[in-house]
Each structure stands twice: as structure tokens, then as C-alpha cells.
């Protein structure tokens, strides 16, 4: 008697389990998968949401990662569209890329650091460990904390490229992952120097975070100068596909590079494309 009663009890649990697993029979009609740059991911997710609102049968799934992953996922077909926060490299020229916004990368210091500007050579010397004290570049007598990005980040590649450095040349004291970790690190250390996305740095500096952007070669690191193309350390935010996009992917890319999303681009502190 007891055994059968127990079986019945166990049986009652089954429908509950079934319900949990059954939801998956409801599937959206079409799904678009984007993977890649963590810089673009929040923006792409917002664009995806707006796109979903206009196309109720479509789901846009955005997964974060890095540009190189975005490129390789697009190539292998793991993702319909890859996200890369840089230009395609020479060996990636078989892929198609579509710019949806621009971003600048600027050097940041703590607000209390009196240093107003650094020459390219000084930046190189600081990052390669030849200069380790701020007094050597006109600042206070304090140790420099070099903040570098972790391997694989396209911000790092852009930075290395501009200063013609190899990552193994750099002697960092802190290695960071994502953008805000860099800003928080510099904000908490008066001797730190780092490089981050200009838009977010401008936003944070304007909201009481104690950091400041340094000009590069005399050109102010501002969203404005990224927009007009005069700021040298800038990059396109790209969507990448293996072949010329068709159907849903094509519609999404067209939408993402249209002026319909300019407000979203600005809300994520990037620079919208200038269109004729």
C-alpha cells in the first residue's frame, strides 16, 4: 500500500516537471544571434529590442564576448552576425563589415593629477616602464600605476597599434577586463593612467567620477572630435557577416545603421554615423 501511495505521490510531481520543460515548445518564428565585442553588446541588445518591437515574430539574441570571437563566430556560422569594435584585419577581408557607430579611445587620469597632457613618447615610456614617476612628466612625486587592457580586447589592439607597441612590451600594474573596471580603477588611484572609451569617460567625468580625459597630440579627447574624425585614436563599431547579408540579417543591419537608432547609440555614449 505504501509503495503504491508513494509512486502516486511521485507521479504527481511529473506534470509539474513537464510544464517546466514544455514551455520550450513555444518557439519564435525567426531568431538572429549576435556575438562578439562586449563594447557593442549593450548597444546591440538595445537595437535588438527596438527591432523586435517592430518585428514581433523576430528574436534578436545578443551574447557578449570579444571582437575576435565575434569575427570567428560569424565566420564559423555560430552567430548570424558578429560584433567587432574595430576594423576588420587584412586576413579577415573575406568577411563583410557594416559600421553602426564610432567610438574613441582616450587616456584617462585621476582628476587630482596635475598633469595636463602627455606627448606620444611620454605615453610610450610610461607604458613600457621607462618612466615610473609622475614627476618625470611634470607631475607630483608619485608612482605611476599603468592600467592596461587584457589580451584580446580590441581597445588594446587599437592602443598598441597607435603607439606601435607589442603587448609584451607593456609593463602594467593593473590589467582590466571591461571599460568600467578601468574607470573605477583610475577613479580610486590618484597615480593611475588608463585608456577607455571616450563617451563613457565623458559621461562618468560629468557625473562626479574623479577622472579626466587627456588630449592626444593636442587634440581634445571628446565625442565631438571623434564625430568629426579629427581624433586619431578612434574605431568603428562593426557588425560582421560571413557573406553578403540576406533576409533577416540584412534587415537588421540596415536598421542598425539607420538613423532610427541614433538615439540608442547616443544613449550608450557612442558616436552616431554622420550621414549625407
Amino acid at each position, binding site marked *: 500500500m505504501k509503495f503504491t501511495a508513494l509512486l502516486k505521490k511521485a507521479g504527481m510531481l511529473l506534470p509539474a516537471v513537464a510544464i517546466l520543460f514544455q514551455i520550450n515548445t513555444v518557439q519564435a518564428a525567426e531568431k538572429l544571434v549576435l556575438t562578439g565585442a*562586449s563594447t557593442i553588446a549593450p548597444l546591440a541588445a538595445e537595437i535588438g529590442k527596438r527591432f523586435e518591437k517592430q518585428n514581433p515574430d523576430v528574436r534578436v539574441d545578443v551574447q557578449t564576448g570579444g571582437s*575576435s570571437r565575434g569575427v570567428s563566430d560569424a565566420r564559423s556560422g555560430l552567430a548570424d552576425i558578429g560584433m567587432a569594435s574595430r576594423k576588420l584585419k587584412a586576413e579577415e577581408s573575406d568577411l563583410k563589415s557594416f559600421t553602426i557607430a564610432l567610438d574613441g579611445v582616450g587616456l584617462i587620469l585621476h582628476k587630482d593629477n596635475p598633469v595636463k597632457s602627455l606627448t606620444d613618447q611620454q605615453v610610450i615610456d610610461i607604458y613600457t616602464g621607462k618612466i615610473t614617476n609622475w614627476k618625470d612628466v611634470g607631475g607630483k612625486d608619485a608612482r605611476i600605476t599603468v592600467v592596461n587592457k*587584457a589580451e584580446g580586447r580590441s581597445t588594446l589592439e587599437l592602443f598598441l597599434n597607435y603607439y606601435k607597441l607589442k603587448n609584451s612590451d607593456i609593463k602594467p600594474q593593473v590589467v582590466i577586463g571591461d571599460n568600467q573596471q578601468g574607470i573605477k580603477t583610475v577613479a580610486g588611484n590618484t597615480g593611475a593612467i588608463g585608456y577607455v572609451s571616450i563617451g563613457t569617460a565623458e559621461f562618468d567625468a560629468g557625473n562626479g567620477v574623479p577622472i579626466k580625459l587627456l588630449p592626444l597630440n593636442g587634440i581634445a579627447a571628446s565625442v565631438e572630435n571623434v564625430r568629426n574624425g579629427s581624433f586619431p585614436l578612434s574605431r568603428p563599431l562593426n557588425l560582421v557577416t560571413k557573406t553578403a547579408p540576406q533576409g533577416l540579417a540584412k534587415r537588421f543591419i540596415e536598421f542598425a545603421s539607420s538613423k532610427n537608432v541614433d538615439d540608442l547609440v547616443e544613449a550608450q555614449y557612442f558616436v552616431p554615423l554622420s550621414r549625407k
Partner: protein
Amino acid sequence: MSRSHVNKSHADDILRIALMSAAVLAVGVLLLILLFLVRESWPALQRIGLYRFVSDAGWHPLEGAFNLAPMLIATFAAALGAILIAGPIGIASAVFGRFYAPPVIAETFRRMVALLAGIPSVVFGLWGLTVLVPIIAKWQPPGASLLAGMLILAFMVLPTVALTADAALKAVPKQYLHGANALGISQAGLIFNVAIPAARSGLIGGILLATARALGETMAVLMVAGNVVQVPNSLFDPVRVLTANIALEMAYATTEHRSALFVSGLALMLLVVGLAAMAGKLGGRLHG
């Protein structure tokens, strides 16, 4: 009622089989994990070779250098430091709950510690990055350092030590304690000579589990330890631990680099196997 008698042994057989298959499944998970770690690390192990993982010039996977040794050392150092801090404090706070605090306070205290155990590591990390690291940076820049990693880890594994120690002390037979009391042993004597020896294996188990946690903690260390791949010369040097290495680079890694990161996962896994073996020798157990 009579039916249940007839079926008794039959039902027990079915039960035994069902239980056994569940256990096989549980063990299978571990084997699967090992299998997949090896499978994914294989390309790197083959092409790069085991030796280069400890002899290369550094960790620059995009430039073909794959030395994991500094990160292994940093992982050990951070976990060891954390345990040296959290061990005594955690056991002391369990002793507090069992022998010193009035029952109401003891219960509240236990609940608080249990809650602390549930705070996500990201929150510890965020707090460490915005509160702890700047404090250390004022004193000894860059602030993000082995010390910061140790302190945050100690904070995080403390509940593990405290809760397991609490359970171990609770399990000490009451007769021992009453007996000791009757003999007129002092409070300190009672704790050091009766309670702690009786709870020894539980305490060791807790410490080892906390060590495993400290070795395996990821996000919080990533946020506070500085992540520079180097063998630390002092507590104030930034270091990168193995877990942080995986979390920092996995989402960015392809091909050989990705495979090399699985090798760091495998290395971590072997560390834990070693720890569990040690636990077996010491008579403790690695459990929570």
C-alpha cells in the same frame, strides 16, 4: 498490508538499483568534466607541450607565449593568505556562536554568516574595487594587489569556515562537554582540549573546502587583484590567478589560445583533486 510484505524485498531491490544509478550519474559528472577538459585542452597540450606551460617567457597567448607558472604561484599565494586570515577568525566566530554568545545573539549571528555566504562574488568584487583597493592604493599603489585579493578572498570564504566549524562543534557529543564541565576545566581548556579536538575532522574539512573555494573564486579576485601575470615579490604586487585568467580571456579567445585556457582549467581541477586527496589523508573531508 499483506501486499507490502510480499513486495518488500522486491521494492527494496528496485530502490537499490535506482539509488545506484543516481550515484553513478553523480560520479559520472566528475568524469565528464575531466573528459571534456582534457578534450578541449588536447590541441594545446599537443601543439604547445606541457613543458612550455611552465617555461615560456610569459603569458602572451597572442604572441605564442604560454607560461602558466606565475599564475599558479599567485593562485596558491592568494588562497593561502586568505585561509591564514579566514581560518582562525572563522573558527573563532563559530566558537563564539557555540560557547560565548547568548542563544538569541548566536542564532542571529549564524543567520548573518549564512547570508554572507550567499552574497555574490561580484558584489564582493565591486565593493573591493571601489572601497578596499583605493584604501590600499593610498598607502601602497597600485592598490590592486595580492593583498587585496587575499583580503577579499578571506572575507568570502570566512562564512564557509564559520558554518562548517559551527556544524562540527555542534556535533561534538554533549557528554564530552558536560564531563569536562564536571571536572572543572576552564572555558579555554574546554574549547582547546575537548571541543576542538573532538571536532577536528569537521574543522579540517571546512578549512580544506574553504581553500578549494579560495583557489576557485573568480570574479571578485579578477576585480581586485590587478591581473598582471607575474610572480609577486610582495603583498602589494598585482597578480593574476588562474581563474581570473580564464574569465578575462575566454570570451575573447579562439583556437590555440582557447585551448590553452582550458589547460588552465585542467590545472585548477588537478589542484582540487590534490586537495581532496590531502583531505582524505588528513581525515577530513572536502564537503559543505
